[in-house]
Structures are given as C-alpha cells and as structure tokens.
C-alpha cells in the first residue's frame, strides 16, 4: 500500500479548467487518506511541470503519483518517464483522463464534469495506492522488417531501412513491382517519368544485399508480436523460370490464345494470359496469369523458360515489424455515373493517362480524333455522407491540371474544359494550375447540389453546368471526350486486412495513432503504415511518409532488443489447483504446467505473455491476476467511483 501519494491536476490551458472546477477537484481529494500533496498545473506535460513533479518525488519521497490530465494515450509514457527519472517505479504512476472523458465529454455541464472528475481522480488515487513496482522485461527483437507492397513507397521504405542496417523482406502481391506509378507517364511538371522513377528504385532495391524481394507473394498467416513476428508467405507460381530473351517473350505472348482485359491500361486494351511486363514494371520477366491460363501449352514451344509445373510455395519468415505500403486503387465510377459505362466517350483520368501514353502525335479514342476534352472533377471524392467518400482525394486537382497541360503540349490542338468544385492545387502546385490557365484552359465550377449533366444529342456529347464562377449562369459545351477525375480509395486487400487487423477510419483508409505525434504507427505495435494506404498522397508525400516509417521502426529495432510492458499475468501458486482453464484460454501459449513442492500449478511464460488477461476470469479459484489490474486495484477503483 502506498502511503505518500502526489496528485497533480492539469488545467491543460483551458481545455480542462474551462469545464471542470479545478479548485473543487483539489479540495475534494486533498483529504483523501495517503494523499501527501495536491497541486494544479497549467500544462502538466510542459517541461517545467515535469521537473516540478520530478523534484517533488525526490524531495518529498513520494511513493506514488497521480496526474489528472488528458487521455493516457497521449501522455502515459511522458509521466512514466518523469517517475522513472526521479527514481520512482513508472508503474507507481496512474494517469486519470479528465479531459477526453470529463471536461470535453461533459462540456455542456460544468457541475457534472467537475463531479465526475473528482470521482475519477479518487479512483486514480485508489489505483495508485494498490499499485506495485513492476520491472519491464527485455526481449531480443529481430532487426528485420517485412515491407508489404513494392510500389514507390514500399521500395523507398525498403531502401531506407536497408541503408540504416535493417534487413528487409519486400513483399509484393503482383508479379511486378512499381505499383501505380508506371501507369501515370509523366508525373511532374519537370517532366519526371513514372516508369523511370520505378526503374531507378528497382535497381536500388536489387543492388542491396539486405533486401529480399518476393513477387507474387502474399502474407497468409501472422503470429507473434513486435520484435518477433512469424509469417507465412504464399508465393504464387510465375510459371517462368530464368530470364527469357525479349524475342522469346514476344513469341510466347503472341502464341498465347487467351486474351483478357489489361489492368495496366485500366481495361482500354487487352493482354494475353502470358503477361509481359510493361514499361516501368520489374522484374522484366514475364508471368502467366493463372486465373486466365487454359494450360494449352502454346507458350512452352515459343519460350523454353516457361514451366507450367510450378506450384504455390509457402515460406516462413521471422521479422520484428511490418511496414504496410499497400497503396490505393483509383475510384471505380458506378455504372451510369456521368455516363460511365453507358456512353462510349466517358473514361476515367487514369484511363486517359494510359490513352495519352498509347497515342503518339494524334489523340484518338475509339477511332475518333479528340479535340475538346471535358474533365469532371471530384468523381468519387467529396461526396455526400450517405453516398460514400466524403474526403478530398488530394492529388487529383494537380494531376488533372498537369494532364491538361501535357495533353496540349503533346497533341497540340486540344481545348480543355475543367468542370471543378474549386481547384485545390495547394502549395507549389499552384504553378501547375497557373500553367493550365495560361494556356487557355477553361475552368467552370459546380457545386454538389447541381452537378454537370452529360447529354448525347445525335453523335455529339454535351456537358451542361450551372457555373459558379459566372454567377450561376447555365453553360453548355460540346466535348469529344469526357474524363472523370476519379479519386483514390484504399487498395482492396482483404486477406491482409484480416491478418494485420489495422483499424481503418470512416474513410476506409488505415488509421494512424495520431496524425501529428505518431503519424506512421498504428494501434498494433510493430505494424506501421505509409503512403496512400493511410490517406491520399502524391508521390513526394508518399516517399516522405515511407521514409518516416523507416526512421521510426529502425529506431525501435536497431538496438536488437525491446523492453516489454511488465503488465503480465501472475499466478498465486498457493491458490492454484491446475485445472487447465487458464492455459486453454491463453491465445499465446504463455501458460505452462509446473510443479511446486509436488503440487501441479500454472506458470506464466513471461516472454510469451502479452498481458491481455484472458486467463484471469476463467480461473475457478481466482489464482491468476493481471499486474496493474488486480482485484484489489479494480475493486478499490469501483469503490471510489461508487461514492455518492
């Protein structure tokens, strides 16, 4: 039992003190038994306050402290650190959340918020009284990271980690690395080519001995936790071994009788079941699309490297952490959305970019020469709540302005009409918008309430809009091609989501713990996210977040060991009659049978125990407890909260 407790009540600027009467809280807990001092502080987390708490611990010989401030998710570790530096065991520290769960939740009721805060602080004091000093456990951690997804982001994560001395498994589901970037052609106003960027990165990846690249690879099983994950990876057969010559590859592709839609060109063209890598996709080794292949064997004659006997292989890997770089899919418009799928001249922006790549000097689509292009923005972005994606996809205004500039430059006689909802070329991208305006592009603006109408009259297509920029005037233009500026949605990958269980936000993108404090970490320790699987980003932003993830996880694993939370299960052998319930309940095989003085009892294997406590309610004799959540602690907290 702790006898000399220090209690600190934080104003948090006004975040707490505006809705909770701090003086009342102080007065209410001052006379609690074993409370030695009570102080208030403007910002408990500020350095000066931290120092004050530290010197109180030292000078007054406090044996436990309670800070009533914000959510422990923000500052539990901050104050545990304060305790530790002052020589107090960090587990004799209790954080009470009177901000998120009192002042903010009850900002409509100051009396109620204050009353609740008082009881919460009392419960915290009760917990502190019963708190025990715990020693954290050091375990070896593999300085090895599995990077999932080998687009630009994944490759940058891998390269960054490898250069800092971390071993990397780069795991790509597709048979080719490069992700979405090679599909875009020119990706910046400076003329950077997506395919060249991925080629450079691929060369950097293969040059590094501490990166192992797996293509056609998927995570099918994961166990363990940060520092020590065991994975099973399924490697789909490529059906091609070695490095066939370009001629052999071509011959085999021509020999293949099976044609399917080419995903790389977003279905604008067909490809064979015998797949050739596109420009910017690597390795430049073909692969056979198992789902389309009829196993007719025509390709085997043309290319000796084809081996149709290959089968799925499963390998196991041991890693310390994951970085998920699974990227995005372009939004797929609904049938009939702005005429998509119904009119033959309505395509998406990614399709249009492929079309631009496929046309040399003249822009032709479906045999028709294209002169007037209407871009309709925010397709699949900034939708109504009930419709779906309420978010802005960030990259599209800039990408479309750049596309319009490139189209005019490449094909000359082009007139671009931009039907937008307010151009969002943030930062330096403004210059791209300016270039589009300067070349004579026409910008018209609509609101969600009155979206552009597409109409086919005869063999001509018209776009009609109430233009905000001309005081709501109804304008109409003819268009040869309608380009739907589709936003980003997270790339579909249900198997991975199932395995890693990363929480997603309302927008279905993976969620970081905190946008500013911990932007690349998820609530699952050791599973980091980077790039567009977290939120829409352009290439530069993707690269930055990928390298930030590399820095974060390297700094965690580089020491080769981790300290584990000591909040583990603990058996009281005197009360234990070994019934096996606890070991059956444990999902981590952390409970073993042992013998003490001839009596069979349970024992906790500490390096396997994750501190979930699943074993505790199933014990018929109440012989197993979770440190930090003992009966004494929880029940004394309930006593405090129940006070009238």
């Amino acid at each position: 039992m702790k006898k000399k407790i220090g209690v600190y009540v934080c104003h948090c600027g006004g975040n707490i003190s505006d809705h909770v009467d701090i003086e009342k809280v102080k007065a209410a807990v001052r006379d609690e038994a074993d409370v030695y001092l009570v102080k208030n502080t403007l910002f408990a987390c500020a350095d000066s306050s931290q120092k004050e708490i530290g010197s109180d611990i030292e000078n007054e010989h406090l044996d436990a402290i309670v800070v009533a401030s914000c959510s422990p998710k923000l500052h539990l570790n901050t104050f545990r650190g304060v305790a530790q530096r002052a020589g107090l065991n960090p587990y004799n520290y209790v954080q009470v959340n009177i901000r998120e769960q009192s002042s903010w939740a009850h900002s409509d009721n100051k009396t109620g918020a204050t009353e609740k805060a008082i009881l919460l602080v009392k419960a915290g004091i009760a917990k502190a009284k019963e708190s025990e000093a715990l020693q954290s456990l050091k375990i070896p951690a593999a300085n090895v990271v599995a990077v999932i997804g080998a687009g630009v982001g994944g490759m940058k994560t891998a390269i960054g980690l490898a250069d800092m001395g971390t071993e990397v498994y780069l795991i790509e589901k597709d048979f080719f690395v490069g992700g979405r970037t090679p599909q875009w052609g020119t990706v910046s106003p400076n003329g950077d080519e997506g395919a060249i960027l991925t080629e450079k990165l691929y060369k950097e990846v293969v040059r590094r001995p501490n990166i192992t690249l797996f293509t056609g690879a998927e995570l099918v099983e994961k166990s363990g936790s940060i520092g020590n994950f065991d994975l099973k990876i399924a490697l789909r057969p490529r059906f091609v071994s070695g490095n066939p010559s370009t001629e052999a590859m071509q011959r085999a592709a021509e020999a293949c009788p099976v044609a399917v839609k080419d995903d790389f060109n977003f279905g604008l063209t067909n490809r064979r079941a015998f797949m050739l890598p596109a420009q910017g996709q690597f390795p430049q080794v073909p692969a056979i699309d198992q789902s389309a292949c009829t196993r007719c064997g025509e390709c085997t004659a043309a290319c000796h490297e084809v081996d149709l006997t290959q089968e799925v292989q499963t390998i196991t890997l041991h890693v310390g952490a994951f970085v998920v770089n699974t990227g995005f899919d372009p939004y797929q418009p609904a049938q009939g959305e702005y005429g998509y799928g119904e009119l033959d001249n309505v395509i998406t922006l990614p399709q249009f970019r492929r079309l631009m790549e496929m046309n040399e000097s003249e822009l032709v689509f479906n045999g028709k020469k294209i002169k007037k292009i209407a871009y309709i923005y925010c397709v699949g972005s900034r939708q109504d709540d009930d419709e779906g994606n309420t978010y802005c996809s960030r990259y599209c205004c800039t990408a479309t302005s750049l596309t319009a500039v490139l189209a005019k430059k490449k094909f000359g006689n082009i007139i671009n009409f931009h039907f937008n909802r307010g151009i969002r070329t943030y930062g330096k991208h403004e210059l791209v918008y300016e270039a589009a305006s300067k070349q004579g592009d026409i910008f018209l603006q609509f609101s969600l309430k009155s979206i552009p109408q597409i109409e086919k009259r005869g063999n001509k297509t018209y776009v009609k809009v109430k233009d905000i920029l001309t005081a709501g005037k109804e304008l109409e233009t003819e268009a040869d091609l309608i380009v739907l500026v589709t936003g980003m949605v997270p790339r579909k990958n249900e198997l991975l989501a199932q395995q890693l269980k990363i929480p997603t936000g309302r927008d279905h993108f993976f969620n970081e713990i905190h946008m500013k404090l911990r932007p690349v970490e998820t609530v699952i320790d050791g599973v980091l996210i980077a790039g567009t699987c977290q939120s829409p980003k352009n290439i530069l932003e993707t690269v930055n977040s990928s390298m930030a993830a590399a820095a974060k996880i390297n700094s965690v694993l580089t020491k080769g060991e981790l300290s584990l939370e000591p909040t583990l299960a603990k058996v009281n052998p005197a009360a234990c009659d070994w019934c096996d319930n606890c070991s059956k309940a444990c999902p981590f095989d952390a409970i073993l049978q042992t013998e003490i003085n001839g009596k069979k009892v349970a024992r906790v294997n500490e390096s396997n125990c994750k501190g979930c406590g699943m074993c505790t309610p199933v014990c018929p004799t109440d012989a197993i407890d979770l440190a930090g959540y003992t009966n004494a602690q929880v029940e004394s907290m309930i006593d405090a909260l129940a006070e009238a």
Partner: protein
Amino acid sequence: MEIQQETCINESLYDVLVIGAGIAGEESALKLADMGYRVLLVEKEPSIGGKMILLSKVFPTLDCAACITTPKVSETARHPNITILTLTEVEEIVRDTKNRFSVTLKKKPRYVVEKDCTGCQECEKACPAIVNDQFQFNLTARKAVYIPFTIANPRVALIDIDNCLLCGACEKACPSNCIDFTQKEEQLKITAKSVIVSTGFKLFDPIQIERYGFGRYKNVITSMQMERQLAPTRPFNNILRPSDGKVPDKIAYVFCAGSRDHTVGNPICSQVCCMYSTKQAQLLMGALPMADVSLYYINIRAFGKGFDEFYEQAKDMGAKYVKGKIASITEKENGNLILRYEDIATGKVTEKEHDLVVLSVGILANPGITRVFKKERLETDALNYIRQTDLLQSPAITSIEGVFAAGTATAPMDIPDTIMSAGAAATETSSYLARLS
C-alpha cells in the same frame, strides 16, 4: 565553469548538426538520437518549439497545439544524445579535409545564467522597461528581462539588452543571483558529419498590401495575432479588437493575404491558411457564440486527411464562406471596416461592414541560412525554398552532399507533412552516416 563548458563544446564532434528547433528540427533530432547518433540542435530564438508552440489548436483534430508539442519539446530537451544551444546562430559551415563540416556558431549572451534561473519571474516584476512582446505578436507588452512565454523551453529568463535600461533592478530582485551583465557573445567551433536544415518559414508581412490597411487600421490584424488570442496561453483571456477593446461580433477573414499573388512575389499557395482560418472560425464561433464569422476566399484548399470534412463542419456550424477577392478595405470612424469585393455568387461588386478583419497571411521561404555555406552552394528554387535536387525520389537531398532539408525549409506544408518530411530527412541522414563509416 563557463570556460570549461566552452572547451567541451569546442572539442565536440557531432554526427548531425540540426539547424532550427521547430517541430521539423525536433522530429529529425529525436529520430536520429533514438538511433544512437549524437545531435547538436541549434536555435536562434531563446526557446525551442518553433512556431507550433505558439499556436492555439491544430486542424483538423482540434487538439491543443501545446498538448502535442510540449511533450516533444521536453523529450528533445532531455534526450541524452541531443545537445541544444538556444540564442545561437550558425555563422559558417565549410567542409573540411575529412569530409566533415567545420561549423562556426555565434551564441548570443542571455545575461542570465541559464542553469541557475528558476523561472520565478521576480526579475520581470522588478524591470521598469516595457516593450512590445514579439511572442504575442505585439498584442501585449513584456519587460526587457523576460521569459519568452509560459511554456517556453528552457523556461529561463533573458535580457533584451537593446531595450534594457541597465538599472540593475532585476539583479537586485533575483533570488538566485543569476543575472550576469558580464556575459559576452561567444564564438564556438564544432565539427559535424552531417547537417539538417530545418529553418522553417517566414510569415508574410501584410503591410506590403496597402489596400488592406494593415498597420494603418487598428482592427485589421493577422491570423497569427488571432492565433495568440485563441491560444491557451492567450494574453487577454478573451477575443478583443485592438482599437477599443470591444468584443467583436462581425469578424471577417481575408484569405490568400500574400499568397497566390504575383504582385507580392509569391505566386504559390501557402497550403495551411484555408485550414487554419477554418479552425479559427470554429474556435471563434465556440468562444463568441453570437458572432458572425465570414470568410472571403478564392478557392478552399481542404485537401488533407479529414480536412474537407472539417471545412464542411465549419459551414454546418454557421461559418459564412464568401467566394470573392477583396479589392479594398476602408475604415469608418468607429473603427469598423468596409470590405469591398466582387461577390462571385452574384457577379456584383458588394460592400460589407465588419468590426474586425483577420488577414490569413501566407508563409514565405526563409533562405537566410544558405549564406553560411562556404565553398559549396546550398541552392534554392525559384521561390527561394531550399532546392530539392531529387524531388520525387529523395525529397530531403539538397545540392550539398551531407546536407539535408526538413519541413517548411523546402516548401509550404502543414504539421503532419512537416513531421513526415523530418522523418524522411532522418532516414536520409542516417543512411548517409552509415555510408560514411
């Protein structure tokens, strides 16, 4: 004591010199220090934390800025691998024969013995010299001896010698005898294997746009001044307009003040103003429920995660977004202001009266640091930001090998993007250091 410390610094070899201790510099320093590198973090201001520590809340989560930034500030301050020098400027950086950087630093005197000051503020009470408080953006005054702001780190006093009357009142008042007028400017020499430039941005000074009347009309203020009025460490505990201390009830925001404007030499978008104004509007509507808040904009750049939803939320709360560029502002006798603009919704030139106008000022490059690099040139782009020589593949790389850039030194960006960019710079630096050894 002093001399010993100086020799110690002089002899030091650091893995990384980080210039600028705003959030970018802190984040890079922390990541590298966590990896085991020795970092010297140099800051020209008396306190670390940059501009973020002065903000109210941050978009789009409305977390209080201080709550997010102070823990990083203290983590930085007490990290065993990080040495911090405040009030220190870099004078010269030159590559030596061992492919390291020989760095000359100038440490300005604080006139207060840092390690002895307890932050009791007795000196402030005693000081008779009153001057504008730059950390409150001149909204209030401070003394010549002062602690920069409540949550400053280090929370230690300093003497603004230019405004000091040398009366000695502070010396008499100080209970720990730490006022020391004999301190001199020191020159320090250190060696660093690599450099991170995280020198941040400058705020646009709207005095350049005469038609807005900033500097002439008292009730035209900048968004940073509003930011201070909304911050937890706010000067007035209320929102007041400067001319008469009245609580305003018709507030206008003028977007793109100094951004997207060739006439002031800044054609680009500052990337943060739409959102910080939207945030301020939400905070104002919370603080002054009866007030009318109108925001005059050209385009709303609500592009990041959760931004568009945040913008929609402001509209739902009652913020009036008016599409139209402000042509001029004129002042009435009662201090109110008439905004003249073309209302895009109607196509007509319109006038509206407000009692407080906030200029959403943009951010500008802060390229001064390029001058300290000798023999090699730290290149800038057409907008004076540090040039990213491999923009898409390695955004932190600059024109000088071993010198990396983080945060708004390279382009306007918001806090999450800055943190990412600083993380990327840490990876780039760590990779470089690994190649060196």
